[in-house]
C-alpha cells in the first residue's frame, strides 16, 4: 500500500499530495483501501481454499450434502461489513464537511491566518477550452496559469461560460464541476503547502479538445505572490517596447477585441497580460516563438473546436505578432 505513495508525475499525481485538501483525501483513500484490503484478503483466502479443496476428484460420484444455509454465518457476514463500513462512513462524512466551503469554515480560517479580510477569493471561469482566473479583490485577471500563495487558504468560486467542465488540480485538491448559469456557481477551497508548479486539468467531457484543456498552477511564497499581483495590476497596454510596435499594431487591429492586455481589451478569449512568462502556449505547447506562430496560424489543428478564428496572417505578420507577444511582460 505504501508503494502507492510517490506514484506518477509529482506535478499531477493524486498520490503525491501537496496541499491540505489533497492530503485529507489521500488519508481517506488509504483508510478505505486498508479496510478493503482486509475484505479482499478474507474473501480470497476462503475462495482459494474452496477452489483447491472442493474440486471434483476422479472417480468420486458421491452426491454432496444439500446444505440449505446457516443462520449464524448469514448474520456474521452481514454484521461484520456493517461495522467495517461504519469505520469508513464516519471519517467520510467528517471530510465531506471539512472540504465544503461554509460560512463557519470561512471564519475559522480568518482567525487562524489573522488576515484582515479572511481568505482571498479567486473566480475561476471555464471556457471551451481554456481557464480564466480572476482575483476580484485585487482587480487582476489572468488565464491558463493560476497563481497561488503557499500555506494560505484560498476560496474559489467556480463557474462556466459554456458547457460543464470540471476543475481539477490532483496534487492540491479534489475536483469540482464548473456549471453554466449564475445559480449553479460552486465553491471550494485550495490550500497548497509546497512551492512549485503543478498541473491542472478539465475532468468533465466538454467537447472536441477536452483532452487539451490543461492549466498550470504556480504556488509562490507569499511575498513573491504579492509582488506578482502588484506587477499585474501595474501592467499597462501601452508599456510595450517600441521595437515591437508593428506587432502591437496587428494585435490591436485583430486580437485586442477578444484578448485583454493590461488595462485594455476584451474578455472573450484568454487574457494575455504577462504572456511572456507563461510556461505553455495555449496551455499545451512548449513556450517558444515557433509554437506561438503555429498556434496563431492553425488554432483548429492544435485545439480542434476552439473559438479562435483563423486570420490568414502572412509570415511577416506572424513574426511581428509573435515578437510582440514575447514582450508581454508584467511591469517591474
Amino acid at each position, binding site marked *: 500500500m505504501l508503494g502507492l505513495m510517490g506514484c506518477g508525475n509529482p506535478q499531477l499525481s493524486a498520490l503525491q499530495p501537496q496541499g491540505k485538501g489533497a492530503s485529507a483525501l489521500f488519508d481517506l483513500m488509504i483508510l478505505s483501501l486498508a479496510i478493503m484490503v482486509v475484505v479482499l484478503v478474507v474473501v480470497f483466502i476462503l475462495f482459494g481454499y474452496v477452489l483447491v479443496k*472442493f474440486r471434483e476428484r476422479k472417480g468420486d460420484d458421491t452426491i454432496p450434502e444439500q446444505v440449505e444455509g446457516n443462520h449464524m454465518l448469514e448474520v456474521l457476514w452481514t454484521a461484520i461489513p456493517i461495522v467495517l463500513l461504519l469505520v469508513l462512513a464516519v471519517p467520510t462524512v467528517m471530510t465531506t464537511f471539512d472540504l465544503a466551503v461554509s460560512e463557519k469554515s470561512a471564519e475559522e480560517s480568518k482567525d487562524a491566518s489573522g488576515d484582515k479580510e479572511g481568505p482571498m477569493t479567486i473566480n475561476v471561469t471555464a471556457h471551451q477550452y481554456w481557464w480564466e482566473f480572476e482575483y476580484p479583490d485585487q482587480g487582476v485577471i489572468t488565464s491558463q496559469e493560476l497563481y497561488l500563495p503557499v500555506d494560505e487558504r484560498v476560496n474559489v468560486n467556480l463557474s462556466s461560460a459554456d458547457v460543464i467542465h470540471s476543475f481539477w488540480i490532483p496534487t492540491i485538491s479534489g475536483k469540482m464541476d464548473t456549471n453554466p448559469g449564475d445559480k449553479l456557481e460552486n465553491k471550494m477551497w485550495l490550500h497548497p503547502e509546497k512551492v512549485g508548479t503543478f498541473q491542472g486539468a478539465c475532468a468533465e467531457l466538454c467537447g472536441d479538445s477536452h483532452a487539451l484543456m490543461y492549466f498550470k498552477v504556480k504556488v509562490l511564497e507569499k511575498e513573491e505572490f504579492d509582488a506578482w499581483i502588484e506587477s499585474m495590476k501595474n501592467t499597462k497596454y501601452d508599456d510595450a517596447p517600441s521595437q515591437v510596435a508593428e506587432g502591437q499594431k496587428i494585435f490591436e487591429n485583430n486580437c485586442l477585441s477578444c484578448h485583454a492586455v493590461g488595462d485594455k481589451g476584451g474578455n472573450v478569449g484568454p487574457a494575455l497580460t504577462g504572456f511572456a512568462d507563461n510556461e505553455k502556449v495555449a496551455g499545451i505547447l512548449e513556450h517558444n516563438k515557433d509554437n506561438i506562430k503555429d498556434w496563431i496560424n492553425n488554432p483548429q489543428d492544435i485545439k480542434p473546436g476552439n473559438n479562435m478564428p483563423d486570420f490568414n496572417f502572412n509570415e511577416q505578420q506572424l513574426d511581428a505578432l509573435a515578437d510582440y507577444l514575447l514582450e508581454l511582460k508584467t511591469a517591474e
Partner: protein
Amino acid sequence: MSNAHAANKSVLWDWLTTVDHKKIGILYLISGGFFFLVGGLEALLIRIQLMGPEMTFLTGDLYNQVLTMHGTTMIFLAAMPIIFAFMNAVVPLQIGARDVAFPFLNSLGFWLFFFGGVLLNLSWFLGGAPDAGWTAYAPLSTQSSGHGVDFYVLGLQISGAGTLMGGINFLVTIINMRAPGMTFMRMPLFTWTAFVTSGLILFAFPALTIGFFLLMFDRIFEANFFDANMGGNAIIWEHIFWIFGHPEVYILILPAFGIISEVVATFAKKRLFGYSAMVFATVLIGFLGFMVWAHHMFTVGLGPVANSIFAVATMAIAIPTGVKIFNWIFTMWGGRNRFTTANLFSVGFIPTFVMGGVTGVMLAAAPADYQYHDSYFVVAHFHYVIVGGLILGLFSGLYYWYPRMFGVMLNETLGKWNFWTFFIGFHLTFFPQHFLGLMGMPRRYFTYPEEFQLGSLNFISTIGAIGMTVGTIIFVINIIVTHAKGEKVSGDPWDGRTLEWAMPNPTPHYNFLQTPLVRGLDALWIEKMAGNKGMTPAEPIGDIHMPNNSILPFVMSLGFFIAGLGFIYINTAGLPALIAVIGGIGIGLVCMFLRSWIDDHGYHIHKEDLLKENKGVDA
C-alpha cells in the same frame, strides 16, 4: 387455425413474425451479440489511440464519437438485449410456463429495440455519431453540432420503449404464469433476478424516456429545459439521467448474479447456500439501487449534506452484495465442483466482482471521489463490475444454456481458451487503469503528454485489450465450429437442477407437454433424488393453446423507425422529413388499430397430434 402450418412459409418470414419466447431469445442474442462486437471494435480503437503518448490515430471529435458509441452500444444494445435473450430463453422454462404472458408484446419489444439500435448506428453513415458521451450531459449534448445526438435521442427512445415493454412482460409472466407449486420462494434465482430487474426497468426507464423527451425538445424544437441562459438548468439532466442510470447498473448486474447462482450450484452439485438470504439480498439491492443516484454527482456541488447521505446509502449496498459473495463461496464449500467453461466464467466472476465491489466502496467515500471522479479510476471500477461482472456472467450463461437454446453444446476446449484469454486480457486491461486514474489521468481524454508518465500503464492496458479481442474471436470460432459439427446433446447435459432441463432437446414449440408439478426449490433435482424419470405432471395431456405469429410488431417498429428518422431531420430536410414523421407514426397507428380490431385467439395443438408426436407418454 392455419398458423400451425407456418413452417410451410419461408424461414425468414418465420423469424420476422415469431412470437415464440425461445426464438425471440435467439433474436435478442444474435443482435445483442452483433452489437457487442461493434462496441468491442470501438473499444479497441480507443485502446489503440491511447497505446502511447501523443498518438494521432483517433483524435478530437471523432474520438468523442467513438467513446460515446462504445458506451451507448455496450449498455443499451449489447448488455441489455443479451440479458433479455436469457430472460426469454430461460425464465418461462424455469417457471414451467408455455410462453411469456404477452407473446405479441414480446415480439414488439424486440423489434423496437432492434430498429432503435439500427437507427442509432446509422449515424455513422449519416454525418457522424453522437459525441457527448453515453451520459449526454447538457448543455454539451444540446449544443453538439450535426445530427449525432439526435440519433442518440431518437434511437434510444425507440429502443428504450422496447425494453420497458419487455420489463412489464416479464413482471406479469413471473407473477401469473408459474406452474402449480412454483411459489415465489421456490423460484430459481435467475428467475428471481429477472423479476427484480424487470421491476427496476419498470421504474427506471420512464425517467429516461422523460429525459430523452426534454433533450429532444431542446434540440429539435428549440425548448430550453437545460439552457441556463434561458432560465433552464443543466443539472436537471444529470439528475434525470442518473435516476435512470444508477438502477440501470443493477438492471444489468442482477441477472448476472442470477446466472452465477444457477451455474455455481449446478456444478457444485449442491443446493444454493442461503437461498432465502440470496433472494432478500437481490430485492434489497434492487430497492437501494434507487436511493444512490447522486453518487455519480458528488462533484456537481450538491453540498456536503447531500453528499454525505448518498455516500452512506451507497456504502450500504455493499452489505447485501457481500452476502451474495459469501453465499456463492459457501455453495461451493463441500461441493463436488466441476470446472466446465460455464463454471470457469462463474468462478472467475467471483474474485473479479469482489475487486469491482471494493473499489465501489472506495468511490462511495464522497470526498475521496473528488479525486476518483471522471478519472481512469472510475473507468477501471465500472469495467470491473460490468465486464468482470456482467460480461463474465453472460459468457457463463451462454456456455451453460447454449444446449438448451440451440440443442448443441459449445466446444469445451475452445471454451477454456476463450475463458483464459478473455479473463487474463481483462485484468491486464483494467487493473492498471486504477493507477492511471490516481496518477491524474482524466477519463475521455484522447491523448496525454509524454511528461505525465502515463505511457507504460496505458501500453499494458492496450495489450490486455488485445487479449480480450483474442478471447472474443475464439468465442466466435467456437460458435462456428460447434454448429458446423452440429452434435445434438440430451435435454439435460449438465445434470441440471431446475425446470429448464426437464424437457427433451430440441425444446418443443409448446415447452412442456404437461405443465409440471413443482414440489420444492430445484424442482427437477428433487424428482431425480426421488428416483423419478422426469417431472410429475400437474395436468393430463390436453389441447395446448398457442399464440399466432404476427408481422405487425415488425411493421409497427419499422414505422417508428421511419418517424424517428423524420424527427432527426425535421429542421434540415423540411417536407420529406415531415412526411416521414407523419407516415411513420401513421404506420404505427394503423398497426395498433389492426391489432385491436382483428380478433386473434391463437390456435390449439390438438391432443391427438401431441400424442402422435410423443409416443409412449401416458395420457
